[in-house]
């Protein structure tokens, strides 16, 4: 049984929908409420490692943001996809399970205006000190000069 099938078995309880976008990849749609449980299931089984957290903005019309948690085990990539509304965008921090996720969460928060509640250090990581509040550079409706 390959790594992605194992992950699928661990996560059945927490995942709403599965897709296989490419060879060696599996995407799992997870609600914000189930995110921690899903990460915990991976962590309990020591499945792979968190490689990155990607933010995606579907645009003003769609009204949603997506947060992608990419886990890798050898060539296999499992992505937990969490869809949240653009207004009051928030996801729970996964730092209690994966401490080094902190830097990824700080980047996500400042670039997309997503509140990562419970993250140990919510300060800015990349943006300058004088960057205006409420301007999130990687949102699609933010135009930069």
């Amino acid at each position: 049984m390959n790594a992605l099938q194992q992950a699928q078995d661990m996560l059945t309880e927490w995942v709403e929908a599965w897709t296989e976008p490419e060879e060696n990849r599996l995407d799992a749609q997870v609600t914000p409420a189930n995110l921690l449980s899903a990460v915990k299931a991976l962590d309990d089984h020591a499945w792979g490692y968190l490689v990155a957290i990607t933010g995606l903005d579907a645009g003003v019309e769609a009204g949603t943001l997506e947060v992608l948690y990419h886990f890798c085990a050898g060539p296999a990539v499992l992505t937990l996809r969490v869809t949240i509304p653009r207004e009051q965008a928030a996801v729970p921090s996964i730092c209690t399970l994966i401490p080094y996720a902190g830097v990824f969460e700080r980047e996500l928060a400042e670039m997309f205006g997503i509140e990562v509640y419970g993250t140990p250090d919510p300060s800015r990581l990349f943006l300058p000190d004088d960057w205006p509040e409420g301007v999130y550079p990687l949102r699609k409706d933010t135009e930069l000069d």
Partner: protein
Amino acid sequence: MPEERFSIPIGPQHPALKEPGHFVFTVDGEVVTGASVRLGYAHRGIEKATEGRNWVQNLYLLERICGICSHIHATAYCLGVEKLAGVTAPPRAQAIRVLVAELERIHSHLLWLGVAAHQAGFDTLFMYSWRDRETVMEMLERLTGNRVNYSANILGGVKFDVTEPAMDAIRHGLRFLEERTSHYVDVVREDRLFLQRTEGVGVMTRAQAERLGVTGPTARASGVPRDLRVDAPYAAYGDYTPRIVTETAGDLKARFIVRLNELSETYQLIRTLLDNLPEGELKTRMPRRIAAGETISRVEAPRGELFYFIKSEGGEQPARIKVRTPTLSNMDSVVRLAIGHQLADMPMLLAGIDPCFSCNDRLTTVQTGDETRLWTWEALRQYGIDYYREKV
């Protein structure tokens, strides 16, 4: 008496290598009790900028994320975009990508060896290793016309071929580098003064390395056998597979040995590649619009795993490009490993992960109370050297 903490901000103009960063260390006497990091002083908004440029323009933009490992960024991007477009670059092009990537690894590791030696006050090693680095810079210049930002890739292939005389020049240079590298392995294993700065310093066990999410040589020095060239071969690594080099000690010494031993593997890989370079085309046609979809491209940069997420909506420009560089993954380990170490060890600890940081260097020491002192990075480096000299 209330508990007083000394906070020592280091940076943002400073640390060991490329790019500025800002660290705040809290200390109790000489011992670091806490640390935090603030980055972004060289943040240029490249991810956002990619959304306003076409697929070809972005190649040149992404290549400029890093001056040292420009080729690996371009390779990760090209492989990802080609995957979305359903195009595969010809075998000779893939092999040339590997060749340049491995020459870049030599360049990067030798540069690191020099900088790390300098942080330890071992400037003779710094100067010799940088002299030797010229050898690989000349190979790269001969192949690509550039010493940095080689611009070897295009979407669908590579720009140039490798001629027989160029191959001979590379083989010749490798013989020299191999001899030098084996000498450096002896130095970092045996030089007593140098060992004082590296042996048992910044120890990270395998379990810690896995918990801290470190990558590349930093992880391999703690016995984590992870290398994407082997685990998930891309470009032509399926045909030219290196051995994964690991050490178990997990200290700074192990990080030196791993990088140097990786160089030896790389020399071997390049020789095999030159002897077996497939014939054929250098490029294939790429569409101007890239089919809608999302892809992930992962490559082994000199510093560790480099991760690209690329999303296309079918147009001439990408919808999103996400880049996760190895330094970001390794940064957290510095902050955590710093705790319990001597302040004097900080320059070496930071250099140990081979961070991408700038070398223009100012460092401020602010003490609680009224007194404020200013230190330069140079002063902290000297402080580290003097501190250990007194202990001899």
